[in-house]
């Protein structure tokens, strides 16, 4: 057991830092630094740079084109990317469908889909949730009926993050309506350009458009796009949910968020002094920082288990719970730091990146929308109530 990095690891860290500095587009870096919203192209340029280097799929095994990072390298990579203001890697391809394909897919599927995910030339989105199936995912009703060498898909998915930017969607669909709810589900890959697919925006409470409803009206999907066996999609779904929960703790981003918060607290005044000198506020930041540290060490412990051959198990749920609460707390304190100057709502600046001048400092107009938006982190990827249900059943045996 050792907290210090080896000389090789330190060398690796330098390599990552140099790479990020050289390859992260300056405008993208700026946007992240200032908490601005990123467009599709912003994510793509950075992910493609990583793809070229072979680092985009940094969690994948070597066999499938991953760089084969050790847990320490993974940790270093994620932290340095965050420290250097790289955008978060969009998880749907690299962390979700990719691993499902290389674990459950056929060789043709691996050849067809994995390269584009590794290189980020295709944008994926996740089609799990439906209006009637959120926490109770297994109740999903989008139907896929086999018709020769195609499935005909009918139904609707909802909450598709960035579905309006996506080239492909991976879906859970019901192939056997008579089986028990978990047993009649299949995992299907669908080209978003297929006729019969409509994407309708859902506007979030901060006014932003990041999620969508996706409607399927007699959409013809080749049977070759089925991953794993028909009616065994739930296995893929569960596997993927465990992966999703790990990334979602977002520790490096939270560390960066705490630093950003401190900077804001230094810039804001309170009775003529920097806000950070206000004892009550300083204690809140300290409390938050301690929570982040505790989470980071818990995550390191999980990674180390995985290095010794374990799979991430249900205890990963604990990471998602705390990670999401911490993300919320950061935005809550940022809002508190900004105070009344968070009131102006400037949608042009916020969403269109117009060159409208901000009211007050540039960070002010972002504080409230961020706080509102981040309420999502305890809901998506399995709500915190559901995560606690899982832990109590799987870990505590209740």
């Amino acid at each position, binding site marked *: 057991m050792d907290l210090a990095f080896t000389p090789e690891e330190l060398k690796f860290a330098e390599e990552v830092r140099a790479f990020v500095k050289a390859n992260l587009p300056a405008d993208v870096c700026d946007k992240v630094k200032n908490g601005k919203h990123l467009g599709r192209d912003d994510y793509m340029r950075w992910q493609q740079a990583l793809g070229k280097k072979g680092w985009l799929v940094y969690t994948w095994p070597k066999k499938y084109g991953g760089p084969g990072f050790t847990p320490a390298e993974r940790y270093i990579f994620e932290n340095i990317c965050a420290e250097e203001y790289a955008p978060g890697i969009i998880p749907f391809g690299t962390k979700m469908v990719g691993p499902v394909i290389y674990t459950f897919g056929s060789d043709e599927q691996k050849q067809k889909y994995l390269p584009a995910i590794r290189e980020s030339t295709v944008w994926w989105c996740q089609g799990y949730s439906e209006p009637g199936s959120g926490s109770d995912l297994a109740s999903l009703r989008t139907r896929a009926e086999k018709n020769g060498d195609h499935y005909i898909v009918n139904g609707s998915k909802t*909450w598709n993050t960035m579905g309006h930017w996506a080239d492909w969607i991976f879906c859970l669909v019901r192939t056997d309506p008579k089986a028990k709810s978990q047993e009649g589900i299949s995992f299907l890959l669908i080209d978003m350009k297929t006729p019969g697919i409509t994407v309708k925006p859902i506007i*979030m409470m901060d006014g932003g458009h990041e999620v969508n409803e996706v409607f399927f009206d007699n959409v013809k999907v080749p049977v070759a796009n089925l991953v794993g066996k028909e009616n065994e999609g739930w296995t893929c779904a569960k596997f993927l949910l465990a992966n999703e929960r790990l990334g979602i703790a977002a520790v490096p981003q939270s560390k960066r968020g705490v630093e950003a918060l401190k900077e804001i607290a230094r810039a804001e005044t309170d009775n003529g002094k920097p806000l950070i000198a206000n004892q009550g506020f300083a204690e809140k930041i300290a409390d938050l920082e301690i929570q982040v540290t505790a989470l980071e060490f818990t995550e390191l412990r999980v990674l180390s288990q995985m290095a010794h051959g374990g799979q991430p198990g249900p205890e990963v749920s604990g990471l998602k719970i705390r990670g999401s609460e911490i993300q919320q707390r950061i935005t809550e304190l940022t809002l508190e730091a900004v105070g*009344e100057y968070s009131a*102006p709502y400037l949608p042009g600046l916020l969403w269109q990146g117009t060159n409208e001048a901000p009211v007050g400092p540039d960070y002010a107009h972002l504080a*409230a*929308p961020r706080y*509102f938006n981040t309420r999502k982190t305890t*809901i998506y990827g399995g709500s915190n109530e559901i995560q606690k249900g899982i832990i109590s059943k799987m870990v505590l045996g209740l």
Partner: protein
Amino acid sequence: MDLSLADEQKQLQDAAERFVRDKYAFENRRKIAATEKGFLPENWAQMAELGWLGMSFSEADGGYGGGAIETMIVMEQFGKGLVLEPFLPTVVLGGGMIAAAGSAAQKQALLAPMIEGKKQFAFAWLERQSRYNLADVSLKAEKSGSGYTLSGHKGVVYNAASADDIIVLARTAGGAREENGLTLFVVDGKAKGLTRRDYPTQDALRASELTFDKVSVGADTVLGSVDGAHPVVEDAVDRAIVALCAEATGCMDAINAATLEYIKTRKQFGVPIGKFQVLQHRMVDCFTNAQEARSMTLMATLKIDDKDAVVRRKAASGAKVQIGKSGKFCGQSAVQMHGGMGVTDELSVSHYFKRLTMIDLMFGNQQHHLTRYSNLAMAA
């Protein structure tokens, strides 16, 4: 000691409830928010007609002799409907300060038309550095001839675009953050040298940044005594805080009711999600929080006219702490219990949540008022 409403007060409550029901169905509010002014002049006229704009002022001042209880009653209903008309800046703050500090002539010229619905006000005190310190004011008013020249900046001034007059807190003497040396001016909204940048706020109200570039005003625009505005402002803001608390109480009732309804009807795993004990207990905590908020608002309403300034201040701060805490709890819980639907713009919950959030930040958040309360309690 008596905690029940008098008959006329019950009637007022019914009337306000009816107003909100008729005018502020959720989709209607969305439309009102999108209009040019962000509220409906016809609603304002109706409030005048119903006597609401004058109810809290003494008969001597042309009002109808009510007080803080009446304000509480209507503000609570306004909270239930997320009413957008500028009652707080115009009546509670503007009208309140004119009634408290104005000369007979000013009351005649300003208060009387306000009560008739013909004048609106805005209160400009905040500056970039002020945070919640009402004395952290640097906009300068310098004597020039018989009048004054105002130069400087004011931020997040609610209702400035619609206000006929803007009540400006300016520094006439003293250094930074000194309580002495502050003076209130009633400045014409169209005064020369005054420029505005208007914008909507997170919770669909309207506010502006104001720049004063050598705005000349007469000596007759001074409201109250020169250099002596601080106690007037502190009292007015404390009253506004209590009114905001009442509004927040209404918001909490509405958001709790909507959430309760949702968890009774939304089904997952074959049952209404309200069958899950975690949600049940959280819902109970929401109701407890709203009850406490109501209790503290009532307490503050009944103490805000106390002769002892310390009692008044502790009451306002105490209620604001509770509202901050309860509002956050109810708001965050409502969103969480709605799942994905809670974070969208589509349902009313997110709109109540945003309003509750901004109420906490107005005139001092929970932390600020906890500090203020504890300092007052320690000194006592």
